[in-house]
């Protein structure tokens, strides 16, 4: 039997045999123990060879086996000829080798980079061209200059500026944060210049950035840089770069490259700048890639205590996992750092920091719930903590926070706005007959338009702090301007008294020094405009100030509606009746409250708060006004019990108190935090109204019969005790303390009126107190014994 040649065996191992050749060899193999042994040996050899190649790839020793590569100084010299004299090899990377060389013609040091070739057919030459072309496009002081491209035969090389410096992270050792930042900003400037030319570096790392002794960085090695042209991203099938500085999209197929890919590497540099540590310190490539793709780096401030938080946020923002969430390019990152250095507010809120916070808060809230269920926390404490956590995880827009903060600049802004509003309002004080009619409202119109335009522009430019200031001013100006324009230009002025009503404005003008009379319909239109713009601004900014403006505008609009329709008025036909007016606003108050409840249940607590608060305030004010008026809501009490007007009115207050307690009960049933807070407020109002009224009804000098006063005198301690013991049910401190106060006033009343001569009275009080205290001591024991007996 003729055994095949070694070549066949080798090709069989490498799976290069095909078709008939393969079938024939396999048939032979089954019958031939010699070839079987050879195949086994060849397989072992192949395994060893793979190992040899693996070690060979990264080490200079094996590079000498590669005929086509420049590995030694001598060999490099042989390519370069006379002009360049090679001094030493300075570096070797995946892309090729770099030598320090003297240019004997120009008498200067240069760096020469030879590209590594995988095989003679490989197009490394074109890569050399590309790198040189890209670098020569970038004429920037912080990017190493390309002088020329050499081409001795197959081996092309790039002659570059020699940078005598240290790698970035080496260079900034011992430097202050400010100095480090200055170097870093120069690096950003260089990369931004590349980004402007649609070039993505792809391999930004400390060893590719050399810092000279003047602390000037130079970005090198555009060996794997890409040109994006007009494309936003480039899809590349292969991973290229340095593992520790790779962005998630660079190591996750399908590989996509954006300018933000460089931003990620720059973020890692910033992290190192701040902490002297890598954000992803994993050593095994697999673990490292996993970490880059899905893990959060440790907070820089956890490593170095004194790190400025805005810088930390900028760094974390640059390290976002999703490229879209990072700064889009190096320039944006640089702008943000410049903003920080100018002392301006930094808006960057890295999502993975907030995600981390969300996660932590989620666990904490779970714990809180357990603690609350186990009565380690009272309901109120639980609510307070919950509200804090809620603010942590869904804070208002940072610009809104800024707008709320009374910084000097913000105070100036609001003050200016307020003066503009006042200035516009002063235009009502005269008829301005000396000015042509069309010019009269113009200052206010111009101011309003300016405010609206500036506000909108600022909002679009993310200057929320200023935008809120301008829009709030515009919001106050809108009703004034509308009204002024309508009045001065006499639009709809004939509709002043459509139903014979007197103008509100005329009545007001009698009271104050006010000359420009406006019609009710004009008031209606201006308040309507105000409401519409308030809602519009609310929709744009979502700032709670506009919720408040909307509510006020709504109430103003409602008032004009009532006046026009004659439901309230000042003229003789409809006399001024507080109870009627209060009645008109009671139901809108209830409406606002219900709207607040609905929004609250739909998780719009942000809008629900002002609605519910204003709603409850309206309800309380209206009910109090009604109770105070002649025809009380509980006037029937007067008829039934033949009461005096004042007595009936006061009793109405007590009844209101009972209604507040009922409303508190409803709020409690609704169960959200906002409702619980409202219930808490109402739970104070209820007892205070009830006990306060009972106390007042017992005052001497009131037109209240003695028998009734006696009833109130007895009712007060009873109600007080009821509140004290009622506090046990839901831990209501409001009940408890009002009850205690009620008891105190009752004791005072009894002492002054009836028992001031009896020494036994205070003694009996003291003894009763002591007995109660003992009872409280023994009560738990009795309860426990009773429970045991029952079980026994």
């Amino acid at each position: 039997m003729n055994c095949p040649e070694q070549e066949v065996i080798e090709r069989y191992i490498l799976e290069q045999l095909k078709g008939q050749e393969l079938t024939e060899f396999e048939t032979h193999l089954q019958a031939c123990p010699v070839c079987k042994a050879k195949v086994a040996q060849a397989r072992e050899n192949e395994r060893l060879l793979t190992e040899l190649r693996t070690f060979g790839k990264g080490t200079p020793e094996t590079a000498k086996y590669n005929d086509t590569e420049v590995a030694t100084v001598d060999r490099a010299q042989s390519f370069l000829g006379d002009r360049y004299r090679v001094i030493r090899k300075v570096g070797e990377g995946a892309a090729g080798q770099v030598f320090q060389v003297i240019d004997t013609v120009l008498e200067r040091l240069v760096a020469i980079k030879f590209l590594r070739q995988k095989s003679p057919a490989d197009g490394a030459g074109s890569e050399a061209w590309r790198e040189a072309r890209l670098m020569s496009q970038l004429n920037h002081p912080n990017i190493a200059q390309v002088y020329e491209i050499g081409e001795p035969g197959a081996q092309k090389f790039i002659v570059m500026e020699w940078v005598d410096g240290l790698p970035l992270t080496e260079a900034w050792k011992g430097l202050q944060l400010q100095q480090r930042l200055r170097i870093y900003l120069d690096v950003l400037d260089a990369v931004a210049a590349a980004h402007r030319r649609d070039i993505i570096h792809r391999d930004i790392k400390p060893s590719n950035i050399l810092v000279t002794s003047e602390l000037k960085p130079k970005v090198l090695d555009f060996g794997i840089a890409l040109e994006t042209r007009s494309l936003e991203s480039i899809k590349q099938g292969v991973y290229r770069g340095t593992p520790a500085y790779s962005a998630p999209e660079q190591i996750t197929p399908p590989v996509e490259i954006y300018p933000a890919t460089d931003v990620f590497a720059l973020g890692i540099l910033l992290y190192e700048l701040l902490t002297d540590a890598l954000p992803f310190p994993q050593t095994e490539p697999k673990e490292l890639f996993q970490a880059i793709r899905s893990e959060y780096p440790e907070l820089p401030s956890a490593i170095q205590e004194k790190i400025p938080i805005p810088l930390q946020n900028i760094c974390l923002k640059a390290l976002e996992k999703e490229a879209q969430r990072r700064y889009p390019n190096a320039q944006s990152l640089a702008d943000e750092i410049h903003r920080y250095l100018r002392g301006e507010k930094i808006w960057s809120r890295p999502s993975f920091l907030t995600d981390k916070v969300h996660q932590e808060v989620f666990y904490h809230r779970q714990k809180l719930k357990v603690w609350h269920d186990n009565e380690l926390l009272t309901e109120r404490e639980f609510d307070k903590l919950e509200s804090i956590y809620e603010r942590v995880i869904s804070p208002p827009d940072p610009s809104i926070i800024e707008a709320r903060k009374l910084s000097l600049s913000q105070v100036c802004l609001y003050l200016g706005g307020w003066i503009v509003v006042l200035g516009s309002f002063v235009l009502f004080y005269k008829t301005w007959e000396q000015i042509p009619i069309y010019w009269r409202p113009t200052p206010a119109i111009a101011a309003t338009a300016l405010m609206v335009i500036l506000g909108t522009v600022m909002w679009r430019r993310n200057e929320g702090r200023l935008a809120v200031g301008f829009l709030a001013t515009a919001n106050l100006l809108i009703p004034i301007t509308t009204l002024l324009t309508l009045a001065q230009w006499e639009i709809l002025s004939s509709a002043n008294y459509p139903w014979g009503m007197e103008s509100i404005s005329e009545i007001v003008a009698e009271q104050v020094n006010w000359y420009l009379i406006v019609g009710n319909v004009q008031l209606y239109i201006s308040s309507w405009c105000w409401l519409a713009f308030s809602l519009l601004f609310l929709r744009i900014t979502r700032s709670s100030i506009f919720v408040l403006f909307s509510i006020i505008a709504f109430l103003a609009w409602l008032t004009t509606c009532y006046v026009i329709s004659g439901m309230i008025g000042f003229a003789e036909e409809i006399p001024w009746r507080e109870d009627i007016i209060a009645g008109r606003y009671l139901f809108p108050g209830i409406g606002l409250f219900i709207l607040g409840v609905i929004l609250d249940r739909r998780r719009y607590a942000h809008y629900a708060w002002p609605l519910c608060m204003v709603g409850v305030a309206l309800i309380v004010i209206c009910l109090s006004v009604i109770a105070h008026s002649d025809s009380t809501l509980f006037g029937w009490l007067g008829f039934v019990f033949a009461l005096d007007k004042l007595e009936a009115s006061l009793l109405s207050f007590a009844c209101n108190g009972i209604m507040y307690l009922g409303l508190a009960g409803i709020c409690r049933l609704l169960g959200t935090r906002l409702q619980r807070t409202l219930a808490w407020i109402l739970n104070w109002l209820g007892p205070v109204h009830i006990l306060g009224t009972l106390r007042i009804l017992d005052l001497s000098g009131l037109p209240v019969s003695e028998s009734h006063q006696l009833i109130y005198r007895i009712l007060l301690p009873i109600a007080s005790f009821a509140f004290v013991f009622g506090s046990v049910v839901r831990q209501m401190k409001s009940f408890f303390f009002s009850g205690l106060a009620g008891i105190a006033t009752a004791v005072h009343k009894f002492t002054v009126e009836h028992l001031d001569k009896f020494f036994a009275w205070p003694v009996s009080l003291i003894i009763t107190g002591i007995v109660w205290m003992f009872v409280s001591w023994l009560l738990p024991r009795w309860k426990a014994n009773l429970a045991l007996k029952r079980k026994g």
Partner: protein
Amino acid sequence: MRWVTTTQVLEELKTSNEAQVWRRFCDHFRPVVVDFARRLGLSATDAEDAAQETMVEFLKAFRGGKYDREKGRLSNWLFGVARRVILNLRSHRPLERLVADKTTGTSFWDSIQDDHSIKHSWENQWRQMVLTKCLEQARRELDSKVFEAFELYALSEMPVDDVAQRLKMSRNAVYIAKSRVLSRLRELEHQFE
């Protein structure tokens, strides 16, 4: 440098006190410890110191009869000593003196803390040292043309036809050269360990 197996070196070390024997032992194992120390983040000087200390410690232990060839590979034993020496040295060096740039050759390794990674690193270094020595020996032993054919075809991955043409030999001869060198390498590797 002549070909010596680990067994030979150890035998000599046990019986002879000559400086030459000590130097041979150091030539044999010192580079691997130096490389390993560099990978663990020591500077060149520190790595040399660490290697020296490892050699001395090993010799002491070996002469004291603490190392028994039957019980484990020399590689493992030397690893234990080197690791202890290097980590000890690392912990007493200020941070500035440790290699800092994590992207260069020493890169990844200077923050290695877990045993698995350190062991893996050592195994790689050791294996590389063994294979390099075997390659050197094979180059000495075998016909230069055979070895060149192997280098060009197997290591540089030059197409087989180009190699055959360049060295004026048949394709089959190139394959045979590859097979011969690799088989010899495997034998040498076995001998060395």
